[in-house]
């Protein structure tokens, strides 16, 4: 008899919900290094994994943690690590390896105030750009931003499925506030949870080309020990997986790594809209700050101001087209985030007309309150009048 996931209704810590979500998604290898405010994920997994036959290993640092999960995934184990800003910085090189080798895995970044050691115990949302641009070179990534403990569970499962479908590292860009929040989490029966696994080779070893993509641009993955004798290298490689240090091979490979996400982005991108239909003011936010933005919408509506919320669930790939479409109907966009305006910059990139986009920003350590968002909007409206 094997252990079962915690089906039922719980009052649960966000970090713990993330850990349980990983188990529900089939994750059976976790390599990590303690770092506030992500440590509770490792603690949860270290207690739960043995019952499921999973392996938790506390590594000597985050470089090792990231390398180990890529290695384990090459052997067929669904793998995850969890960290915060300083650890994320150390993981980026091997996240790039996972991108290049096309190895599915999940990285949780419970963001805190930064840069450097910053505010270890306090909230931040400043690693948005790092996830997309932090590892060297051009690549596409998928990053989710949970705004509740329930989403810590649900999006962790989705992150694993996405990683398996596209053979990519997927980042869960959560924050200290959600990670340390305790609220209701409903865990369904195991049979109701959709779990997706990577595509296996459909030809014998002598015909197998490890990096020959299917129509969806994703190649089929042979695991170690299956007799396919794969060679994987972080060097630019051809369909055989062999190094090919030419501009042509590089263009072909990196273009496909970008396209496999970009061309499937309609399937990947997730967001939530609240009262955007008739909104004149569009609030954009994500993670814990989206909850303040939602409350701000309610306050503004009560006062007769037509506000709506667009909540990013996927941050990467960024929903430029959707935001452009919404921007045609509004007269003001307000982006609230606990950084100096990282997503605001992406919103500006999305627009095709001149439209005011104001930011409500704090640099870390404190949540943005609904009142602060409301005041900033009113102040702006007053100036304009």
């Amino acid at each position, binding site marked *: 008899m094997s252990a079962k996931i915690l089906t039922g209704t719980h009052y649960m810590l966000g970090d713990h919900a993330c850990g349980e979500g990983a188990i529900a998604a089939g994750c059976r290898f976790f390599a990590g290094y303690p770092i506030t405010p992500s440590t509770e994920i490792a603690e949860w997994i270290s207690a739960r994994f043995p019952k499921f036959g999973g392996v938790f290993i506390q590594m000597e640092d985050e470089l*090792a943690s990231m390398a180990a999960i890529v290695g384990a995934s090459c052997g067929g184990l669904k793998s995850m690590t969890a960290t915060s800003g300083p650890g994320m910085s150390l993981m980026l090189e091997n996240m790039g390896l996972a991108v290049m080798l096309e190895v599915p895995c999940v990285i949780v970044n419970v963001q805190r105030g930064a840069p450097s050691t910053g505010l270890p115990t306090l909230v931040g949302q400043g690693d948005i750009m790092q996830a997309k641009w932090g590892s060297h070179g051009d690549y596409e990534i998928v990053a989710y931003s949970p705004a509740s403990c329930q989403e810590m569970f649900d999006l962790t499962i989705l992150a694993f499925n996405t990683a398996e479908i596209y053979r990519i590292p997927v980042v869960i860009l959560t924050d200290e506030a959600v990670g340390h929040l305790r609220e209701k989490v409903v865990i369904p029966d195991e049979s109701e949870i959709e779990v997706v696994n990577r595509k296996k080779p459909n030809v014998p070893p002598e015909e197998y080309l490890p990096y020959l993509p299917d129509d969806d641009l994703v190649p089929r993955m042979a695991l170690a020990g299956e007799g396919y004798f794969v060679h994987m290298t972080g060097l630019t490689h051809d369909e055989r997986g062999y190094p090919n240090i030419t501009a042509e091979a590089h263009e072909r490979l990196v273009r496909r790594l970008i396209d496999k996400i970009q061309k499937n982005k309609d399937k990947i991108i997730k967001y939530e809209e609240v009262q955007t239909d008739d909104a004149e003011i569009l609030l954009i936010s994500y993670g814990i700050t989206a909850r303040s933005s939602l409350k701000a919408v309610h306050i503004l509506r009560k006062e007769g101001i037509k506000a709506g919320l667009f909540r990013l669930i996927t941050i990467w790939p960024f929903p430029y087209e959707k935001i452009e479409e919404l921007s045609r109907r509004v007269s003001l966009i307000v982006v609230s985030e606990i950084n100096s305006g990282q997503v605001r910059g992406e919103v500006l990139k999305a627009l095709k007309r001149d439209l005011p986009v104001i930011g409500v920003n704090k640099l870390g350590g404190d949540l943005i309150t609904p009142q602060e968002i409301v005041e900033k909007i009113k102040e702006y409206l007053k100036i304009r009048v």
Partner: protein
Amino acid sequence: MEVQVKKEIKHRLSKWIREDRWPHIWCSGCGLGIAMNTMLYAFEELNIDPKEVAIVSGIGCTGRVAGYVKVDSYHTTHGRPVPFAIGLKVAKPEMKVIIFSGDGDIIAIGGNHFIHAARRNFDLICICVNNFNYGMTGGQFGPTTPYKAKTTTTPYGNFEYPFNLPYLAASAGATFVARWTCLHTYYLRQSIKKALKRKGFSFIEIISPCPTGFGRPNKIGEGLDEMRYYKEKSIIKNGIDPKDAELSLMGGNIIVGEFVEIDKPSYLEILMENNERIRRAEI
């Protein structure tokens, strides 16, 4: 008239080699071919199925071995083959996971992972080819470069002290530690075979000539000259305390042999036992 059928001549090791990757990138006189070849003979003599072997390497000349051997092989990032191999071994405990990389990769940038894998007595075979310099980048000094040796970044002579790798491995907790040169292919093969048959962390240092990167600036000569030095100055001292395992290319001795062989439960043995106990308590 007799019809002559041209028979394709296959090398005994050809099933282990990705022949479509030939020729290799290594310089003439380099010891890497011998080191790789000796490992493949060890596989062959133990009648190992290539499906059971995985090779993990990092970056550098030695790191290229992973690309030439026809087994599941992973050419990872600089310094990280050890943790990558740890993940792979957890996923595939039945496979023989071998780290085959250089001194710069395993000991300099990857040194922390190396000592921790040894401390854990993690079930891996770590073969480190030591050529005393960074060959791939053109011959810079590293943590194994002898005192006073000249490299492109120590043009006036190296003033850092080098690591003694077997001593480092043994102190950190490796349960099998050996050192051979590229000349000692018989003994090296026996040590690799021994490592392939045991659990826990096995470390084998292979001293290799690098005539291009290290031999030339230090006037050691060609690869063959360095091999001659190995022949004259190597002393086999099995079982000695590795801290006394002298290594000199500047007139002193090269102490080789199997220095450590300890029976101690391995990481995976303990882990599996613990997990089983926890699972049983649950039911």
